């Protein structure tokens, strides 16, 4: 039997009763919010967070977490602590009354104009 050098195999020999001293203080790294841009000129879209000790490493990790599949033009990272946000308790500030529905994007009737333009310029679709 060959002795495996792979720790995934050899760890089965670790004594499970061996107690691990708990940490006195939390020593976790900070989090950074990651923003992904698909094409140059497009908006960066928030895609998630990474743990990192500094911005350089946050960029490295964001590249692998969020940029390694599909197309990527650019990535931003921002310290989570540097984000300012509204309070969820104040969520009611976003509500509109029913009679102000014209303010919502769905209230715009642009399809007519688009179709008219298409007819004029003979663009089929």
């Amino acid at each position: 039997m060959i002795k495996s050098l792979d720790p995934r195999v050899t760890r089965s020999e670790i004594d499970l009763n061996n107690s691990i001293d708990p940490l006195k203080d939390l020593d976790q790294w900070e989090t950074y919010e990651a923003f992904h841009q698909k094409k140059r000129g497009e908006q960066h879209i928030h895609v998630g967070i990474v743990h990192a000790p500094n911005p350089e490493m946050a960029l490295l990790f964001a590249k692998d977490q969020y940029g390694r599949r599909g197309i990527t033009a650019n990535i931003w990272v921002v310290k989570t602590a540097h984000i300012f946000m509204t309070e969820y308790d104040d969520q009611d500030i976003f509500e509109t009354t029913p009679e102000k529905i014209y303010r919502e994007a769905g209230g715009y009737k642009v399809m007519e104009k688009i179709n008219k333009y298409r007819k004029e310029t003979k663009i089929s679709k």
Partner: protein
Amino acid sequence: MNQDAIKELLYKMADDLLILGHRNSEWTGLGPILEEDIAFSSMAQDKIGQSQALFEILHSLGEQEPDIVAFMRNANQFHNSQFVELPNGEYDFSTIRHFLFDHADQLRFEMLSNSLFEPLAKLSRKIKGELKYHVFHANIWVTKLGNGNEESHSRMQNALNECWNFALGIFEESQFERQLIEEKIFEGEVELKKRWLENISGILEKANLKIPNTNTWQAINGGRQGKHTPNLQPLLDEMSEVFKIDASAEW
């Protein structure tokens, strides 16, 4: 062009990447933190992909299928440097090895992007971004840990000392060195080592790490001729275990 010289070059590059790719993949699930685990695993996968591309070129020169070449040879038929077959040890060792090897690897491909052997030149251009990222990653970790605290610094320095002579074994010259240079296939190991030393010196200085004293330098060679440490064969057995159950299976 000298086919034997090209094959020798391709084999040593492919074997280095396959073996180190496999070694680095042993960290999957065990990396220091989740993000780094994913990054390191992803780079290990890149290396195996790069080795496959080189085995494909070898196949086009009449060698066997990539899977057969990768999984069916014994240790003494491998041309990788002994450096890449050493067990992972702790993360300091793996990080320093990643740094020393990947700098050499990036430079080697960069030099090959001008090779008159077109398939290699083409591959070099194709994987340029991957290699650049691997070196970014290595530089950031080495600089961070070299300047961390006393423990991280001394661990990195010890790992560097431990790796050094093995790393010099990457540049073991082949019997075809002169032909490769004359035919403008590859500028040679001596030139590669020179550029490598220039590149890593600046980063190591920033990381506050010292290259061992030149009078202690003694390249650990032999890997390129099939001489290996006892660490390689168990790796190969494990790597090819599933493949060998049914070598003709379609995946």
